[in-house]
């Protein structure tokens, strides 16, 4: 009796998107680093474009890695994903509440937390939490 009922069910995108996500992250990182390291002179509009390109590329890549299914997507993986998502959400809320007070205490003035930064923080937190659970269960 071979059961396939638990395998690869649930939401998510194909596992190949994980490699694609890592590729996008690397391209975004290399673009950002090459501009910084080689001190390429850019006009303000070009600078804004490359900043958005790097940040959004990084976010898109992380999103692909986060949403890509595992080879076998079973109930334990689903539980680990849920736990990682819940813990990251709570951490992000606490971060947004605490950050203005930290800014006030250590550096003036208070900087607003941008949506892009919160999304990046949550994706990185989710992936760290999920993979640490996954590897501790191996």
């Amino acid at each position: 009796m071979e059961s396939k009922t638990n395998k690869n069910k649930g939401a998510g995108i194909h596992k190949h998107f994980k490699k694609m996500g890592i590729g996008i992250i690397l391209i975004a990182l290399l673009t950002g680093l090459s501009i910084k390291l080689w001190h390429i002179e850019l006009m303000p509009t070009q600078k804004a474009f490359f900043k958005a390109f790097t940040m959004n590329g990084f976010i898109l890549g992380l999103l692909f890695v986060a949403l890509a299914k595992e080879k076998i997507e079973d109930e334990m993986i689903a539980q680990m994903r849920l736990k990682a998502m819940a813990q990251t959400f709570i951490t992000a809320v606490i971060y947004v509440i605490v950050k203005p007070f930290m800014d006030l205490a250590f550096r003036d003035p208070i900087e607003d937390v941008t949506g892009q930064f919160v999304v990046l923080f949550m994706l990185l937190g989710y992936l760290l939490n999920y993979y640490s659970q996954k590897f501790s269960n191996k």
Partner: protein
Amino acid sequence: MKNTLKVERAKLNITQQELADKVGVSRQTINSIESEKYVPSTLLAIKISEIFKTTVNEIFKLENGD
């Protein structure tokens, strides 16, 4: 929750991978259940008990505090 999955598996002489393939989960999930790091769902517990031709209660037992 305690379980006797390892013992039952030894009786049938099947590997974690073979059991995982039969119930449709990963080998890591079977390993986590055996090491009592993960408590399976009712559905998975029933599937496992069917493989060993026994009841769920024979394999999974409640501990004090559960």
